[in-house]
């Protein structure tokens, strides 16, 4: 299993027009993506996520650094044949229909005419645009454009799929659909590299993540590694026991229904309470271990910078 993507010490700065002041966007980005995984690239807006992606695609030429895709330079023409790209806020030739548009891009991939129509129909079905396939793209909603964007990214059956904010601007149903497609891509053996600033989605699909802030990757690794699975405390919601008794276990909160929620630190105490509940006529309503989530981790990291 090699690396699908390896970025080493990427630097990029821009001149702001005539003023000749250089703004450094990427100050040494390094990360590696293993084959077959879903990799999340997160960071606040302006951190350099899109710039990094554009470097990967040869839309921007970095000042310094190396980019390798499966061991070869990313500018190698073969490399781009194995990539699919879904940009943020995609916009396409609005007078074409979805089908015509996909046909055009299929030509750019040099796909053989014979299998193209089936392939296009398959993709349209995959992204759920069958009903609008022959509608002009100018009539597409943002979500629909995003989906056709995904379809064109998958035209050449790429090994590496790059997505810039793929879930932005979608309703919850749309987000779920895209998330499912992403997971499916992994099942097909593809590698997915997606950038986002919506953490819940990243949490749900990604295997590994890199956090970029202010032009640098400040943290990288699997979700397991990054987020301490340590249980901080457990929230147990009980009824039928006296509050004063429960206060011995931890902080108590009475909620409107009459049940009492206790924040208990330490698994031994949780066990003792459970025993107590079992041996009495009290009822256990819920038991929720509270761990750190990605958002807290992320915010903590950013604030630490």
């Amino acid at each position, binding site marked *: 299993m090699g690396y699908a993507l390896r970025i080493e010490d990427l630097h990029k700065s821009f001149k702001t027009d005539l003023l000749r002041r250089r703004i450094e966007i990427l100050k040494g980005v390094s990360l590696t993506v293993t084959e077959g995984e879903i990799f999340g690239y997160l960071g606040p807006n302006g951190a350099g996520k899109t710039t990094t992606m554009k470097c990967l695609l040869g839309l921007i030429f970095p000042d310094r650094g190396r980019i390798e895709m499966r061991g070869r330079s990313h500018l190698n023409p*073969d490399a781009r044949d194995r990539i699919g790209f879904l940009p943020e806020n995609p916009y396409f030739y609005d*007078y074409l229909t979805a089908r015509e548009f996909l046909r055009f891009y299929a030509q750019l991939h040099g796909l053989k005419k014979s299998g193209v129509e089936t392939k296009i129909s398959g993709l349209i079905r995959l992204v759920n645009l069958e009903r609008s396939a022959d509608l002009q793209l100018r009539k597409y909603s943002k979500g629909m454009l995003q989906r056709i964007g995904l379809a064109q990214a998958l035209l050449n059956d790429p090994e590496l799929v790059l997505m810039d904010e793929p879930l932005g601007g979608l309703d919850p149903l749309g987000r779920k659909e895209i998330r499912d497609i992403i997971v499916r891509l992994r099942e097909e053996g593809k590698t997915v590299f997606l950038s986002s600033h919506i953490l819940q989605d990243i949490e749900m699909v990604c295997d590994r993540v890199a956090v970029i802030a202010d032009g640098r990757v400040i943290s990288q690794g699997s979700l397991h590694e990054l987020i301490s699975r340590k249980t901080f405390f457990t929230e147990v919601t009980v009824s039928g026991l006296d509050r004063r008794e429960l206060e011995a276990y931890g902080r108590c909160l009475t909620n409107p229904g009459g049940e009492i929620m206790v924040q208990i630190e330490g698994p031994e105490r949780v066990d003792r309470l459970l025993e107590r509940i079992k041996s009495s006529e009290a009822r256990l309503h819920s038991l929720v271990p509270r761990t750190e989530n990605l958002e807290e981790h992320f915010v903590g990291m950013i604030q630490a910078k």
Partner: protein
Amino acid sequence: MTIRAIAVNTFREAIRDRILYLLLFFAVTAMIFSRLLALLTVGDRVKIIVDVGMGSLALFGTLMAILMGTGLVYKEIDKKTIYTLLSKPIQRWQFLLGKFFGLILTLAIMMAAMSLIFLLLVLAHAGRPTWDMLAGLAFIFLELGLITAVALFFSCFSTPILSSIFTLSFYLIGHLSWGLETLIAKLRPGAGRAAVQIVYTLLPDLENFNFKTEIVHHLPIALPVMGSALLYGLLYTAFVLAAAILVFRRRDFL
């Protein structure tokens, strides 16, 4: 192949541009207006219809070339359609050439329409379209091709307005370089004169494609002249496209 696919797509996009039809309308109007001009002048009627007709064809064709050439690439960059396009396994030069040929195709259609109307107008005034006339029209088209390449070149790194101004300047310089020739004749030989001569040789001489005088006065156009002018036009176009390719290669798309 890739270039063809992009060319066809460019053509389909360009031919929908309403500006083209507006300019076409003006061109036709100008040609018909030449009839009126013919009444006001001290000269042969058919002459003025041919001259003004071909002149307006050239003028409006040039405007079309400039507006389309500067608009299309900029639009792709502005609307970001270029991101997905260039992320495909195509080379940037293929993109440029595809755009160029798509524009040429669009211009060809427009020119054919204008030429048809022009020739009908000539017929209607008891003139006779000659082979030389068709050759003159063909050379106008060659000039338009060169201008398109120049417009495309500028739009690789500049905004549409600036690109239009630069391209228009190219056109004006191209038709006024005889002035430089006169100047050279009056300079004393030396480094200064040599420098001006180099500049003069490299500056576009679009008058080489202008056969209006010969056509209007029924003078023969010598074959070596036509052949050389054709070669000149093709070489200059190649030069501009090569420059555009080089400029476009390393452009960052922010």
